[in-house]
């Protein structure tokens, strides 16, 4: 019944080294990756939606250095997660803690429960230090995906 995590995030949706001067630039770069993968038809509209959610929540960054910008948008063709590592860090609204691990969650306007279930499992794993460390240290995009697959059944 559930959807495997590796349909949501594929190696081409993993960015190992993202350089972004600010939050907006990071979101734009990640959205570009989604467009290139054919999972997003309205790049600008989607960026605006993610941005609006950032403003609403005061930023989706956590003290642990992760950020989970997210939006539901009609331009998203299939539920997707982009994993971006930002070695230089980028501000996502958490005090004194730039985010170096960004999970962008893109859901189509009518995302169904099975996808939501997988996404919330991912969110739950992110609370655990060991999981974050493994993702930060994974050598390749494929390794990132296989860690996710291992940890999120």
């Amino acid at each position, binding site marked *: 019944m559930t959807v495997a995590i590796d349909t949501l995030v594929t190696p081409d949706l993993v960015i190992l080294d993202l350089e972004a001067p600010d939050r907006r630039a990071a979101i734009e770069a990640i959205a570009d990756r989604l467009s290139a993968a054919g999972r997003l038809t309205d790049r600008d509209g989607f960026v605006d939606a993610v941005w609006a*959610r950032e403003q*609403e*929540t*005061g930023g*989706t960054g*956590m*003290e*642990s250095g992760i950020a*989970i910008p*997210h939006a*539901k948008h009609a331009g998203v063709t299939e539920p997707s997660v982009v994993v971006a590592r930002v070695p230089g860090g980028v501000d996502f609204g*958490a005090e004194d803690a730039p985010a170096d691990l960004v999970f962008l*969650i893109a*859901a189509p306007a009518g*995302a169904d*429960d099975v996808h*939501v*279930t997988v*996404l*919330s*499992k991912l*969110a*739950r*794993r*992110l*609370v*655990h230090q060991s999981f974050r460390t493994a993702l930060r240290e994974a050598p390749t995009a494929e390794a990132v995906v296989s860690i996710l697959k291992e940890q999120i059944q």
Partner: protein
Amino acid sequence: MKLVAVTACPTGIAHSAMAAEALEVAAREAGHEIEVEIQGAAGGPGISAATIAAADAVIFAVDAGVRERSRFDGLPSVEVRTRRAIDRPAEVIAEVEAAAAEAPSRTAARPSPMAAAAPAGTSPGEQFRIWLMTGVSYMLPFVVAGGILIALGFSIGGATRVTEVEDWPALSSVFDSRVQLGALLFKIGAIAFSMLVPILAGFIAFGMVDRPGIAPGVVAGLIANELGAGFLGGLAGGLLAGAVVMLLMRINVGGALSKMMPVLVYPIVGTLVTGAVLVLLIGNPIADVQSGLTDWLTDLQGTNAVLLGLLIGSMMAFDMGGPVNKAAYAFGLASLDSGNFAVMAAVMIAGMTPPLGLALATAVRPRLFTDAERESGKAAWPLGLSFITEGAIPFAAGDPLRVIPALIAGSATAAAISMAVDAQLRAPHGGIFVLGLIDGKIGYLLAGILGTAVTAAVVVGLKSVHRDQAHADAGAAPREAVTV
């Protein structure tokens, strides 16, 4: 310590799940038990009323309104944003420990009536049904009180005469005059009846958003009455009121302002927006639909009374006191108001045969029923005779695919016969107790007896066929019907 927590965020995907995980981990590390309810898209089952009653304190880690918050009334609580629960879960746990220690020994948390009925995370269709049933269930005592008092008033003072009494009867006159005594009962009953739509609308909204929904919902129901939008208007008005308050609850305001929301903003803005939308936009179209429906059914009565009987009989039995049943009942009331007494007679007999037929079936074929059903069968006699269709629910809940068709067959039969013999009833309720008020008693009794017999026969027949599979195929049957 036993803790409960609710986490919620606007999309209900990420932050609520992370906060739940962080709180679970931190609570266990601190040696506490915890159960977390995630509200929103990723919600699992809600926390049971029993767990809440046993809990020592509650944590709200929320960026959005808490659904059915009153379940937790009386528990020491701590409220934080999800981010704080994610970043500093241990601090939040320490705060809730302090809150629990400070709180005076509390009285047992009062389980809300909704706690069992509407667990978070049910499907949208199921959720919708629960909302409507909440409204209908709170409306039912008004139906019974109003209906029976009006019926009694009619039997004591005469239907025509009591309705002609204009002023409230005085103490001195009620003991002298049967008409005045009847009028007293009638007028009290009529006041109860005038609340049907407001209570329906108010408690649909209550089912959706808890207490803040009641004021906008009740006002929506009063407006629906005023506009002539009736039962349909009440359904729509209640849903509208709930939706408006739901939106207001999503507005995040910080600090002191957040305390003003339930006291000032939900009642004022909720009522204003709901009322304005109802009056200016949707009220009159709904009133047109409602009167169109009534006109259509009334026309049908002229041209094909038996067909009308079959239709309203089926509606009365379909959900045994639910929204469809009440829609048919509302049509009966509207017909009474316009001086047409045949429809009410058919509605009442169709609402009586479901419990009666099942009671009869348990008496003649007890082996086909469980012990609990046989007990329900005994209670179903007086319920059916009193026109409380809900007496059939215990049977239908266990085996809907066999029971509901049987109920529909019997009720349709009863209502069609009642229409065919043109039985007339001037009271809106009362069952066997208003038999004296009915014109065409013999035909009416016949309708009731045959309807009861049909229900009993069909349910016995259906339960006897494939009896071995009685439980196994209850879920598979609809699929077969589609593929064959």
